[in-house]
């Protein structure tokens, strides 16, 4: 199923591309100054996507929280405070304590580290795999594509649960293995998306142009194809992050997931959280909020980025055929 090439006429391009300004020689510089596209993107995000910027701020907060966890946390996240179990939130323990008399606030703060590591790690790995497979499969096509795609088919038709449990069972517990499991369960779908993005630009004239000037294949892949599928990759990554955090929680619910005592939000929520839910609601409220904040943040950021990175909005690859 090939999408019909959209021959966009100039006025629609102009309409869709508010960036398009004839770069006239007028030195007055009425046109806003342009920075590197990333900075530009950031400015646009703040200016035009309040919801996305809010998501970005949430993400940033969480990231900072993760980085500065030891400074922010009021207690050692694994220390058990005598018999003070299930103490409600208060001045000693901001978010109360859990059933093992550990400070929930500190655990949530440190949990940002664990959960974001899992999220970033899983997404990083899955996106890496997906990119390699998607780009190779899409760009070279032919037999390689057929073989890779059949394998992707097979992997995609496995229930995700099987993949994750299998990996967890083979490799045993551990954060690294959770990451691997999540990545393996998730990369196939992303590789499809990236492949189709590559297919869309593979025949664009600038790739042909690169060939015509005599670029080698690796150079074409790295300099021309990759940067132009960066947008879907970035979006996949932000959306995937939220999903990875949720998936880790679900894995924890089934007993897999990041092994304790590491304070993963998912484990906090699904393990003793659900057990003690009725006696200590804070045990599920705070980790739940943390997860939701992360997923919400990453998704909103991803959405906003998708809008901003739409090539027709920023004047990127126009001939997306």
């Amino acid at each position, binding site marked *: 199923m090939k999408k019909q090439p959209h021959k966009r006429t100039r006025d629609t391009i102009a309409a869709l591309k508010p960036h398009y300004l004839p770069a006239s020689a007028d030195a007055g510089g009425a046109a806003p100054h342009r920075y590197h596209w990333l900075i530009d993107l950031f400015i646009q995000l703040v200016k035009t996507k309040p919801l996305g910027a809010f998501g970005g701020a949430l993400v940033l907060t969480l990231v900072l929280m993760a980085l500065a966890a030891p400074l922010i946390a009021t207690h050692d996240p694994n220390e058990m405070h005598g018999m003070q179990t299930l103490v409600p939130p208060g001045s000693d323990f901001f978010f109360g304590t859990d059933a*093992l008399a550990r400070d929930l606030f500190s655990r949530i703060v440190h949990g940002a580290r664990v959960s974001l590591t899992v999220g970033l790690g899983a997404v990083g790995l899955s996106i890496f795999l997906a990119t390699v497979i998607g780009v190779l499969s899409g760009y070279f096509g032919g037999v390689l594509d057929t073989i890779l795609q059949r394998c992707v088919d097979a992997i995609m038709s496995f229930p995700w649960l099987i993949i994750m449990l299998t990996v967890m069972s083979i490799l045993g517990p551990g954060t690294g293995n959770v990451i691997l499991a999540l990545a393996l369960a998730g990369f196939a779908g992303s590789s499809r998306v990236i492949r189709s993005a590559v297919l869309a630009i593979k025949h664009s004239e600038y790739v042909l142009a690169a060939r015509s000037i005599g670029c080698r294949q690796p150079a074409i892949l790295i300099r021309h194809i990759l940067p132009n599928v960066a947008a879907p990759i970035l979006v996949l990554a932000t959306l995937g992050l939220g999903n990875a955090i949720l998936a880790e929680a679900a894995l924890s619910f089934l007993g897999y997931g990041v092994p304790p*005592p590491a304070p993963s939000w998912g484990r906090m929520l699904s393990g003793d959280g659900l057990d003690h839910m009725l006696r200590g609601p804070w045990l599920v409220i705070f980790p739940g909020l943390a997860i939701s904040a992360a997923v919400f943040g990453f998704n909103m950021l991803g959405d906003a980025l998708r809008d901003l990175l739409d090539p027709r909005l920023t004047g990127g690859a126009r001939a997306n055929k």
Partner: protein
Amino acid sequence: AAEPQYGGTYRIHSTPIRSLDPHMETASQTTMVTVNTNNGLLCFSPDMTGVEPDLAESWRQIDDLTYEFKLHKGVRFHDVPPVNGRELTAADVKYSIERIAGMHGRASDFKHSYYFEGKIDSIETPDDHTVIIKTKKPYAAFLKYIASPWSAIVAKEVVEQFGDLKRHAIGTGPFILKEYVMGSHVTLVKNPDYFKAGKPYLDGIHIRIMTDPSSVVSAFIAGRLDGAQVTYHFMPTIKKQVPDTIVEQLEGTYMWTLRCPPWIEGVKPLQPPFDKPEVRQAIAMAIDKQRLLELAWGGFGKTQVGPVPSAAIYSLSQEDQVPYDPEKAKALLAQAGYPDGFSAELMTWNLSYMTQPAQILQQMLKEVGIEIKLNLLEFAQYFNRAYRFDYEMALHLMTAGVDPEEWLIPYYGKVEEATYYKWSNPELWDMIDRQQHIMDPAQRETLIKEIQRKVIADAPNLFLYTQDRFLIRKPNVHLKRYLLDVQGLMGEYIWMAQQ
């Protein structure tokens, strides 16, 4: 003490039931069904210490080695094919006991074969209602084993027709299996021809397979279950939501045990630092069992002293408890040459009832300088490694049946006999072997207690706690007795008041 009433279907829940063959399964879910569909020769007395007649109208011990059982007359199997309500005979008893001992079929399939295998000299059936069993040596636990729910009496035709009993529970019991849908439910209906006159009271029992604890609680609160087993977390809610709930708090028999590496002399000698008894003792002293129980299970349970849990007979009292003394533990460690402690890996499986105490142990041992690295394996993997005896330390759930020796032989007995753990202390082996044949209860009790003290001193395993179980039921459910704590469903003693 109201008059029992007839009628009603008792609705309860269970975790998945893998098989209905009482001789091949150890899981309590199986006996939950078979205890209602089958009878044994004997059964336990309500206080679980003695035995009572069941299919055997009476029994008598002729000498140290010989037992004679007289069967009730006119006991009929369920009126379903292939038995079609034929009468029970001594041959069925003989067949069943032989089957338990692994003589009909592949020996390894029969998980309680150790009850009788190699221990029985002969089974004779002089007439249709008499069974005479001779043991090879005096066998102290013999009657207990005969009364065990795993020693259910089955019919030979059933086994022959279906190959095994995995899906067919046909016996002489008060209820007939009507439907068994794996993973979904088990339906039992009243056996109108039950040999105990007037019983059962219930029209049927419906066992719903449920795995999620909060679903169970909700279903109970919403009135879709008449009885349930729940964890302590939910008790306040249940009491508040359904104030008239009858709650029975029963002492559990699953024992949380911290294991040091097994010791198989010659094959797998003890490695440092665990080769030093001081180290093992230090670990024992570093653990505050009461606090552990408090944190891990809200204090709803019993801290344990020795290998035989307090719920069973011949267990040790708190006087023999190893005191919590971190200072002494440190001193012992120093004495053993580890003044700065050491680090070790603690293996257990990845469900929260194990990971919670594991985390607490980790913290407690840290205080005396022992760094614990948790290794939380998937269930199958854990058992795989545990039974290759390939671990440094393990947090384990010990469970056993009906006699104190079942807590000793498979753990500290001779290497060939000890299946769950290995400990090459010949002194213990000898004592454990001796207690099997002491027919005098008092004498046997003394020896068993001594064995336990010896185990505590050796400290290969640390006995942490058992959890209490909360069996709840609706106020109209009258329940006279429980079997073992986990096999709480003896349908024939239950009746429900009509509302």
